[in-house]
């Protein structure tokens, strides 16, 4: 895997916090810190997507579905006796 240098600009007031975060999450290595940040943000984006879908389902159904109802729905779907 080839690595390329990417530049970022930050304000003086953010520099101290950045250094702290780089130390904590990247062991002082900015590249490692960025890798950790990318992974975590990507995870959060996936989570947000699923969370929104779950909320939408809740609104459509107006209730929580029980595992028993799910079992029956799947059984009916595949033509099996629940």
């Amino acid at each position, binding site marked *: 895997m080839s690595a390329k240098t990417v530049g970022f600009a930050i304000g003086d007031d953010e520099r101290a916090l950045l250094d702290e975060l780089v130390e904590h999450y990247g062991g002082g290595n900015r590249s490692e810190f960025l890798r950790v940040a990318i992974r975590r943000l990507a*995870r959060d984006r996936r989570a947000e*997507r699923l969370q929104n*879908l779950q909320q*939408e389902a809740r609104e459509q159904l107006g209730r*929580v*579905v029980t595992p028993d109802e799910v079992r029956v*729905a*799947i059984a009916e*779907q595949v033509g099996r006796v629940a």
Partner: protein
Amino acid sequence: MLTPVVYDVNVLVNALVGPDSSYPYLPRIPPTTENAAADCLAITLDGDDMLLFSSLHILSTTATALVRLGVGADLAQRYVGALTDIITELGGAVLDPPRKTHDSRDHEDNLALDCALAAEALILVSSDHDLTSLNPWNGRLILTPERFVAHVVAGRRGSSSRG
């Protein structure tokens, strides 16, 4: 080293329409949440220890079961789309496995086992008793969502205390 895992239809459906949880975030200390199926999905979102695989059949049955429960077809499709994106983004795959397994009396269960076999999954997660009663199967674990979450959380706590 990531552990390949397959979630049965009931897990994927319950994750969307089941009880409240801290979904998609997983507490580190069990008991986790009221929705173990959602916790299962939360585990795979990390891409830290589990690698999720699925099959065209599992995903299409998930969508149709959701519609049967009253979820709109559009939402069901978007949910399956999101699952597909997440699976592939993290390095897993949606498979169309060949029909091989006949160990369960239930045809649908055999299709889930086929997926586990094709994915070389070490764990199949299901709340279907016919499936979990086969555990262990063919060198693989077949766990309920609750047991799977407890298994992963215990493993993570062990590795963080070692680290």
